[in-house]
């Protein structure tokens, strides 16, 4: 489709503005003035709306297609959340208001939302406190890493420079540890998909600051040794970081704070049903055990005895300001609505049903694909297309064939320790009928590998574009149309 710029015609307007009710003036000296206007489009509102509406139709989303993208928890996003976020009392609220004299009284409703969401999360995760400030999952990881660094530093334990990370971890884990100033060292996964205890022991020492573990693991498995792992790390003087990307598997059933984790981020856009937005905005609150509370970022929200909420800007040991204000408030608001909807009974029902669906998927698919570990999984199942790959059809090809059959593909080639991985996360909001349709499609594709593999290699054929040459695109990048 042509770019919006192609629809531009000199003099066309897409918006109306208030009449000037003061003398036309400016305090911009001539020498600072832009000589040539920025070449933005000149289109009508209708042109723009039609263009972007048509673009939206070139997307798959949860509302149009089953979207079992592993590790991303593409569950349904309730529609009333969107209405709440645009209420003027929230959407038009300037973030600096509470910093003004008597300003705290002006934003009690918003502060209540953040505080109550934070309390609910702490309770749900088994932590002493939470910060809602991190702006995305990876930002939460970085925050958690900085909390661990502050903890060791305050204790004068400055030689702890190593962050241990399993070989199955998300790429953001080592990247966040590096941005937080740590060196990363990999810990192996054993044949059952658990942390290899021997390998962990051999790497623990006085130079280890902590261990970043995804729970359940990126293989979609619950590590039966997780408590022992946490204890070993503690004995060595390190802290345990929980990557909460997979919280949907254990929400309400396991509280990470109870089993030895000291700090954890959660992804509100995954577990708490806020929209993924085509890649953000997310929100990555971080929960902490008692030992890390003093280091939480400022500003902090406290509830006073009289039931009002107040911001605290001065906490001696705090790591400081990780976000401009209080987090991605609009996202926190939607997640809070979801928490209120679920209530104490709902959290566990979500995880139970998510796990059941993934296992149903696993059992029905395991005769057709390989598995690294054959045991009851959590909220996602990791299949391997290595039998198909031997016949020349790879995970990528299977993904493209799924697109033609009306499904968004699962996560591919992750975790890295599973060759030809297809990581499938159905979520609790999808029905058995939908799962069956998807499973049938995958089985049909697997059968096609034997009968007519060429047909798969041609996929997708139903999409606005065919397979695109990503290698050539990266070699000679064209990343903008300049005027």
């Amino acid at each position, binding site marked *: 489709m042509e770019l*919006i710029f192609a629809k531009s015609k000199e003099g066309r307007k897409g918006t109306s503005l208030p009449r000037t009710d003061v003398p036309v003036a400016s305090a911009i000296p001539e020498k600072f003035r832009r000589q040539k*206007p920025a070449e933005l489009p000149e289109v009508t509102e209708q042109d723009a709306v039609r263009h972007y509406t048509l673009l939206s139709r070139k997307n798959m989303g949860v509302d149009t297609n089953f979207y079992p993208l592993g590790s991303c928890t593409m569950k349904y996003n309730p529609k009333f959340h969107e209405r709440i976020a645009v209420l003027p009392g929230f959407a038009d609220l300037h973030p600096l208001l509470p910093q003004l004299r008597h300003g705290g009284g002006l934003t009690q409703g918003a502060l209540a939302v953040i505080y109550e969401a934070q309390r609910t999360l702490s309770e749900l995760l088994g932590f002493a406190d939470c910060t809602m400030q991190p702006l995305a999952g990876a930002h939460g990881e970085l925050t958690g890493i900085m909390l661990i660094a502050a903890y060791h530093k305050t204790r004068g334990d400055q030689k702890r420079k190593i962050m241990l990370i399993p070989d199955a971890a998300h790429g953001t884990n080592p990247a966040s540890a590096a941005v937080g100033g740590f060196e990363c060292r990999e810990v192996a996964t054993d044949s059952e998909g658990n942390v290899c205890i021997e390998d962990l022991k051999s790497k623990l020492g006085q130079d280890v600051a902590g261990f970043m573990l995804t729970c359940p693991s990126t293989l979609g498995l619950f590590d039966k040794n997780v408590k022992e792992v946490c204890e070993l790390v503690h004995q060595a003087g390190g802290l345990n970081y929980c990557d909460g990307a997979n919280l949907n598997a254990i929400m309400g059933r396991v509280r990470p704070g109870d089993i030895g984790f000291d700090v954890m981020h959660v992804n509100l856009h995954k577990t708490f049903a806020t929209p993924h937005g085509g890649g953000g905005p997310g929100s990555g609150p971080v929960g902490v055990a008692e030992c890390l509370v003093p280091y939480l970022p400022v500003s902090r929200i406290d509830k006073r005895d009289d039931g009002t909420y107040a911001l605290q800007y001065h906490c001696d040991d705090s790591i400081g300001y990780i976000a401009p204000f209080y987090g991605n408030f609009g996202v926190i608001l939607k997640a809070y609505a979801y928490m209120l909807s679920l209530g104490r009974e709902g959290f566990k029902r979500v995880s139970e049903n998510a796990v059941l669906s993934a296992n149903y998927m696993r059992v029905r698919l395991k005769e057709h694909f390989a598995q690294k570990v054959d045991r009851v999984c959590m909220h996602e199942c990791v299949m391997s297309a290595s039998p198909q790959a031997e016949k020349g059809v790879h995970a990528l090809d299977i993904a493209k064939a799924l697109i033609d059959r009306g499904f968004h593909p699962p996560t591919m080639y992750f975790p890295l320790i599973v060759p030809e991985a297809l990581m499938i996360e159905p979520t609790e909001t999808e029905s058995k009928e939908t799962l069956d349709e998807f499973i049938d499609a995958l089985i049909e594709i697997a059968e096609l590998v034997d009968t007519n593999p060429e047909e798969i290699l041609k996929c997708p054929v139903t999409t606005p574009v065919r397979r695109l040459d990503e290698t050539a695109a990266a070699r000679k990048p064209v990343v903008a149309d300049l005027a």
Partner: protein
Amino acid sequence: MPYIANTQADREEMFKRIGCADFAEMWRQAQVTVPEPSLDKLPHGLSEFEVVSNLKNLAAKNASELVNFLGAGYYDHIIPAAVSEITSRTEFYTAYTPYQPEASQGTLQAIYEYQSMICRLTGMPVANASLYDGGTALFEAMMMSVRATRRRQVVISEAVSPIFRKMIECYSTNLDIELISVPAGIDDSNQQALLDAVTDATACVMVQYPNVFGTIEDWAEFTDKVHVKKAMAVCSTYPIALALLTPPGELGFDIVTGEGQSMGIPLSFGGPYLGFMSVTQKLMRKMPGRICGRALSHTTDSEGHDGFVLTLQAREQHIRRESAMSNICTNENLCALSALVYLSCIGKQGLIDVAQLCASKAVFAREQLLAIKGVEPVGGDAFFNEFVIKLPTDAGEVVGKMIDKGFAPGFPLGRYYDDRRDQLLVAVTEKRTREEIKALANALEGVLWN
């Protein structure tokens, strides 16, 4: 309501298939043996109606209706309704990162158009798909300069948003980076002091344009002098101002970042916002975050359709892990889409008109305020829509009293600058009317002298 699709009958069939009697057995087989927690401290679940009522009550407890002259980097601009209509398209907002380009051409083309508009606005050749916010964008710019120059000292002007500076300070704690903060002048960045701070070890100098006091400064020669010392010039900017101001790309900056909230994104109590970033061609492969690029069809029998893909992914965490350019995993996509639709609807002349309205009203507001006895200018030779005035008393206290009269009259700079306790930073957007501005001046006069 937990939005669960399956019925009890479905579950029973599924249990049978997987060989478990019930959830308890499923957990056991999954090796989840830790005791089940009690969540009795949490309230019972509510219906949609109840949650909406509950949150409407909370919304009503916020003073969002104050007449707003508060800015300091976050501005109350007009947002055409078309923006939220488009971002409410569920094909956009229920999708995720466009890993599968054939199923995500809508998102990808939107990112490409967004990148193009950021380039055109800032006068730079390359932009990324966005970062979290203006502060994290500036930090990422700083880290990019550190990587590109292999130097570890950075210089930042105290005329850069104190909010951004506090974030950068926080992120730098554990990195081996020397952060040098250069005090501002009366209303400027004190360019000479900034240049004096640059050494052979300096990776970059970070400034803001217009600066936090609203002042527009001449950066053209400055960037040349920074380049002589082989350091990079980085600026954080205000996109609406760029409708009227010489774009940073023409002033010799290497990296341009900023807070994009002013482009169609509601204030929403601090987020979600939009960090934008554009760079020189030379820095493209050092840039953090997602980047969308054009691509040709791969299949030999294709009609050669042009499409879009995420590109230059070798920079990113999912490939490079701890050696990645950044730990960022997504962009702030829906906010970038808001900015894109905003810029499309407002358009080439519209953005100039918006900016001109801001500029005119700011001049008018400053005149009205300076006419009050005891109110004095602080600098103010060159500004866009924000300026500083000096009050005869503590600005923080005055603001408190103005709030009681229905105004958020500006930001008291004393909160971040000890020596500016009597200074008020006033922002005026196209939304403010002549009457509101006159009422502001009247109210302020009343507060100061009655």
